[in-house]
C-alpha cells in the first residue's frame, strides 16, 4: 500500500532532478494534502441510512478514492490567498491592454452578490417566483437597445465569442429562410480582425474571405468591392478598428455590403470608444455583440466569466436564441414561442450575475455618463500617444480613438536583441501589466495601448515616464530589457518547451 505522501513524491518529478535547488512558488494543494484533515463541516445525512449497494442495486460504485487534497480550513485559505498575491489585477495596478478595455470594476456592481434573493435563485424557478431577476434581464435588454440602436437583444450568449457565433448563426438562419444560403457562403473578414471572427464564422460552416486592410488598418474599399458579390453573406467589422481608428467610410461600406445583398456584423470589442457618442445600428450594421467585461466593466475574473449580449435589427429578430425575456405590461416571462429561432446556446438563462452587474453599471452612468466614458477613454489614449510620439514609432500618428498602436522599430535599431516582447516584459518590473503585443497581426512588432477612461492623469504620466525610461534602458543597458522581467516571482517562462511536452495534470507530469 502506497501512502498518499509517497505517491505524491513519486509523481512530482518536477521538484527533483536538475531543479532540486528551486522550489515552486507555492506548493500545490496536492503537495499539501494531509489525509484526514477537514476543510469544512458538513451536515449529517439526517435520515435512516441504507447501504448504497441496496439503493443503487446493479450500479457500478466508485472503486477508488479520487486524489483530491485534504487540508484544514486555514491552510486552504492561506494557499489561495498566497496564490492571489502572485496575480496582477485592476484593483492592484494599471493594464494598458489594447483591445481588452481593462477598466475599473465599480464595487457597487458587486452589490447583487450580497442579495441571496438574486444569487440563490434556481434557473428553472417558475416565472411567477422570479419576477425580480426576469426584470433585471428584460430591463438590460431594453437598455442595450438605447445604447446600440438595435431593435432586439438576447443576453443568452456566455461571452463575446459565443455572441459572435450566435450573430453569424442568425445571419445564416436569415439566408436559409430566404432561400439564399446555398449561394451566400462567404463571410468577409479583414486581416486586422480578432481571431474569434474567422473562428466563429468557420464554426457556422461559412467560407472565410480575408481582405487586406489599407495601410492604416481601415477597410480598403477597393479590396472590399473586389470580393463583394452574390456569394457574400456578410462582413465582420470592428469599429473603431483594432488599430484604434474609426472607419470614416462606414456609411459607404454598409451601403456597398447591403447593395450586394450581404449583412454587416459589428464586433463590439471596441464599443468603449464610441459608447454614448454613436451607435452601431445607425452606421448600418445588422447585428452586433457586446463584451460586458469590456464596455460595461464586469470583472474579467482572470479569464471569465463573460457575457455576450447580441443586438439585432428587426429583420434578424425572429432568429434570436430561445427563450427570450419578455414583458406583457403586467409580468415578465420567458418567451419561447420563437419558431424561427436558431435554438439554444446556453443551458439556462445566460450569465445572470454579469447582467446584474452591467445593469448596475448602466444605471450608475446614465446616457450623459456613458458619453463621458467614451470621451475620457479617447482623451486618455490620445494623451499617451502625444507624449510618446517622439520616443516610439507610431505608424499612424493622428488623433486616434480609445487605443493606438506603436512599435519597437526605433529600439530594435539600437540593439538587435530588442523587440516588442522585451519591452512589454520590462513593464512588469515597474508594476505595470504589458500592453497588448503582436496584435493586430497587420502591424509589425505591434504594441497596442488602451488606457481606458478610469485611469487618472497621474497614472498616465507615470506610465509615460516608465515607457521613456525603458527607451533609455534600451540605449544604455539593453540587456536589462532583453532579460526582463527581473522582479516578478518568476523569470521569463519557456513556453515553447511547455507546449512541446505538455504537463497538464499534477499526477502525470513529465516536464
Amino acid at each position: 500500500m502506497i501512502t498518499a505522501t509517497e505517491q505524491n513524491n513519486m509523481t512530482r518529478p518536477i521538484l527533483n532532478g536538475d531543479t532540486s535547488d528551486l522550489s515552486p512558488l507555492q506548493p500545490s494543494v496536492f503537495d499539501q494534502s494531509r489525509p484526514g484533515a477537514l476543510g469544512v463541516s458538513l451536515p449529517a445525512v439526517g435520515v435512516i441510512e441504507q447501504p448504497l449497494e441496496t439503493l443503487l442495486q446493479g450500479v457500478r460504485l466508485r472503486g477508488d478514492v479520487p486524489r483530491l487534497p485534504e487540508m484544514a480550513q486555514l491552510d486552504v485559505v492561506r494557499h489561495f490567498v498566497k496564490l492571489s498575491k502572485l496575480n496582477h489585477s485592476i484593483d492592484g495596478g494599471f493594464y494598458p491592454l489594447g483591445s481588452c478595455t481593462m477598466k475599473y470594476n465599480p464595487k457597487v456592481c458587486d452589490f447583487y452578490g450580497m442579495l441571496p434573493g438574486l444569487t440563490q435563485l434556481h434557473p428553472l424557478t417558475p416565472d411567477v417566483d422570479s419576477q425580480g431577476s426576469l426584470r433585471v434581464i428584460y430591463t438590460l435588454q431594453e437598455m442595450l437597445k438605447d445604447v446600440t440602436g438595435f431593435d432586439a437583444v438576447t443576453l443568452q450568449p456566455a461571452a463575446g465569442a459565443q455572441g459572435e457565433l450566435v450573430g453569424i448563426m442568425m445571419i445564416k438562419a436569415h439566408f436559409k429562410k430566404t432561400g439564399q444560403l446555398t449561394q451566400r457562403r462567404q463571410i468577409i473578414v479583414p486581416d486586422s480582425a480578432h481571431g474569434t471572427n474567422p473562428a466563429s464564422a468557420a464554426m457556422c460552416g461559412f467560407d472565410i474571405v480575408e481582405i487586406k486592410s489599407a495601410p492604416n488598418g481601415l477597410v480598403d474599399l477597393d479590396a472590399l468591392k473586389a470580393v463583394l458579390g452574390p456569394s457574400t453573406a456578410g462582413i465582420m467589422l470592428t469599429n473603431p478598428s483594432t488599430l484604434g481608428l474609426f472607419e470614416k467610410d462606414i456609411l459607404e461600406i454598409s451601403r456597398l455590403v447591403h447593395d450586394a445583398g450581404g449583412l454587416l456584423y459589428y464586433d463590439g470589442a471596441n464599443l468603449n470608444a464610441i459608447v454614448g457618442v454613436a451607435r452601431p445600428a445607425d452606421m448600418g450594421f445588422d447585428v452586433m455583440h457586446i463584451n460586458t467585461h469590456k464596455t460595461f466593466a464586469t470583472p474579467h475574473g482572470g479569464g471569465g466569466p463573460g457575457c455576450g449580449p447580441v443586438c439585432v435589427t428587426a429583420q434578424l429578430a425572429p432568429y434570436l436564441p430561445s427563450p427570450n425575456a419578455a414583458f406583457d405590461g403586467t409580468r415578465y416571462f420567458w418567451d419561447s414561442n420563437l419558431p424561427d429561432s436558431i435554438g439554444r446556446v446556453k443551458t439556462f438563462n445566460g450569465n445572470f450575475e454579469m447582467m446584474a452587474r452591467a445593469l448596475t453599471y448602466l444605471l450608475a452612468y446614465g446616457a450623459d455618463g456613458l458619453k463621458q466614458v467614451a470621451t475620457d477613454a479617447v482623451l486618455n489614449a490620445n494623451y499617451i500617444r502625444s507624449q510618446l510620439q517622439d520616443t516610439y514609432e507610431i505608424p499612424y500618428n493622428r488623433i486616434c480613438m480609445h487605443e493606438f498602436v506603436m512599435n519597437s522599430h526605433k529600439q530594435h535599431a539600437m540593439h538587435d536583441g530588442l523587440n516588442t516582447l522585451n519591452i512589454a516584459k520590462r513593464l512588469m518590473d515597474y508594476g505595470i501589466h504589458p500592453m497588448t503585443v503582436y496584435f493586430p497581426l497587420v502591424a509589425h512588432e505591434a504594441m497596442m495601448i488602451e488606457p481606458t477612461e478610469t485611469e487618472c492623469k497621474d497614472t498616465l504620466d507615470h506610465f509615460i515616464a516608465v515607457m521613456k525610461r525603458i527607451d533609455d534602458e534600451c540605449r544604455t543597458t539593453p540587456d536589462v530589457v532583453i532579460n526582463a522581467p527581473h522582479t516578478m516571482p518568476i523569470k521569463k517562462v519557456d513556453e515553447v518547451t511547455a507546449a512541446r511536452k505538455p504537463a497538464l495534470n499534477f499526477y502525470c507530469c513529465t516536464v
Partner: protein
Amino acid sequence: MVMHNFLPHTPSDRDAMLAAIGLPTGQAGLDSLFDDIPQSLRNPLPTSTLPQSGMDEASLQSLLTELATQNTASGKACFMGGGAYARFVPMAVNTIASRSEFYTAYTPYQPEMSQGTLQVGFEFQTMIAELTGLDTANASVYDGGVAVAEAAMMAHRITKKTRFLTLNSVHPHYRGITQTYVEGLGEVSLETFANTRALTETDTSNVAAVIVQQPNFFGGVEDITALRSFCDATKAILIVSSDPTSLGVLEAPGKLGADIVVGDIQPLGNNLSYGGPYGGFMATKTQYMRQLPGRLVGMAKDKDGRPCYTLTMQTREQHIRREKATSNICTNQALNILKATVYLTLVGPQGLKHLANLSVQRTHHLVDRLTQLPGVTPIFEGQPYVFECAINLPKPVNEVLAALSAQGILGGVPLADLYPEYPNGLLVTCTELTTPEHMDRYVSALSAILSGTTVTNGNGKSSFMAPTAPAVACSL
C-alpha cells in the same frame, strides 16, 4: 463635461491633456476627438429605458434590494434540480473568490504576472481528471451544455464522421445546444434514442460519437459498458456528461470507457444565480488532448529552471489559428473554476463522497415517502436512481407546485414542457440544503394538497398577484 465617481479627471485635468495633445480646451476640444465619426452618426442616446443621468450608489443598492425581494422564491426550500442544484457553498469559497487579485485580473497570457490564476487552473484540471478517471482536463468552457456540444465537435474532428447518437435521457437543453452547434458542421445529424438498447441496435455506419448522461436527466443510471462496446465496434467516441458531485459515489466514467467526460461545475461552490455563470468541464485521454477546445494550463520552467505554470498548446486556439482553431472559444470560466477548486479543496474526497451519499439517502427517503401518498408513483418503477427521481402526480403538476410554493416549498422541476410524454411528471432532488425538516414539510404539504385539504390556485399563474408567501427559514 460630466463629473462622475468612476471617472477621475477634473475639468482642469482634461484641459491640460487636451492642450498637451494640441487641441482646444473645454467641451469643444473633447468633441473634436470624435471628428472622424460622421456628424450624422453623432447623436445623443435615446433614454426610453436608459436614464439620462446616473443614479447614486445608495439608490442603486435600494433598487437591487427591491429587485431581489421580487423573487418570491427566495427563502423557500428548493427541491429543484435538472442540471442546477441548491448546494451548500462554504463561506471560505466566497471569501477567496471575492479577492480582487483574482476577480479583477486579466486572462493569464503573461505568466510572470499571473501565477495565481494559472496555478488554480492547473489544480482544477488535475481535480477534474481525478474525478472523471481520465488523463487531461481543460480549464473550462462556458457551461455543461456547451461542454457537450464542444465534445461533439471534438469527436467530429477526431473521427471525421457525421452522425451523433444520443439518448432521450440526456438533458434536453444539452441536446438543444448540441443541435445548435453541430449544424455548423454541415451535413450532420443528431439522432435521439429512447434507451441504450435502441441506440445500440441502430445502423452502425458513420457514427462520430455516442452522447450519454450519467446520472441521466431523470436521475437514472445508463449502461456505459454496453455503450463502450458499441463505440468499439463503430470506432465512435464515447462522450459522458456527468454531475461532478455524483462522482463521489459513482464509478468514474473514464474507468468505464468514456473517451470524453464533461459536465457542469455549478454544484461545486457556485451560486445558482438564475442560470449563471457556471462552468463546463471537459476531460479526455492523452491521445485526444490536442483536440480539446479552450484554455489549458501546463507546467513549465522559467529561464532559471524554476517550476511554474503557463497557458499552453495555444496553437489550438482562435487567437493563433483563427478559422482553423479547435473552437472559437476565448473566454473561459476562470472565476467559477476558482470557486470549484477552493470548494473541492475544502470538501476533500471524503466530503464529496459524504455529500453524494447524503443526497442519495435523502432523495430515496423523500421519494419513498412521497410515493406512499395516493396516486404518486415513480415514472421509472424499479429502476435505480441516484439523487434525482421522476415521479407522477395525480393532479396537474403546475397547480400542485404553485400550492407547494405558497407553503414555502419549490417542489421540483415539472417535466411536461421538456418531456410532453410525461404530462404529470415531476423531477425531485434532495441535497444537503433540503433538511429532514424540509422533507417533512414537503410530505405533509403534498399530502394535504392531494387530499384536497389545501386549495390550489387554478393554473398556478394567478398567484403572482397574491401576497408573497411568508418567508420560511432556509438553511442557506
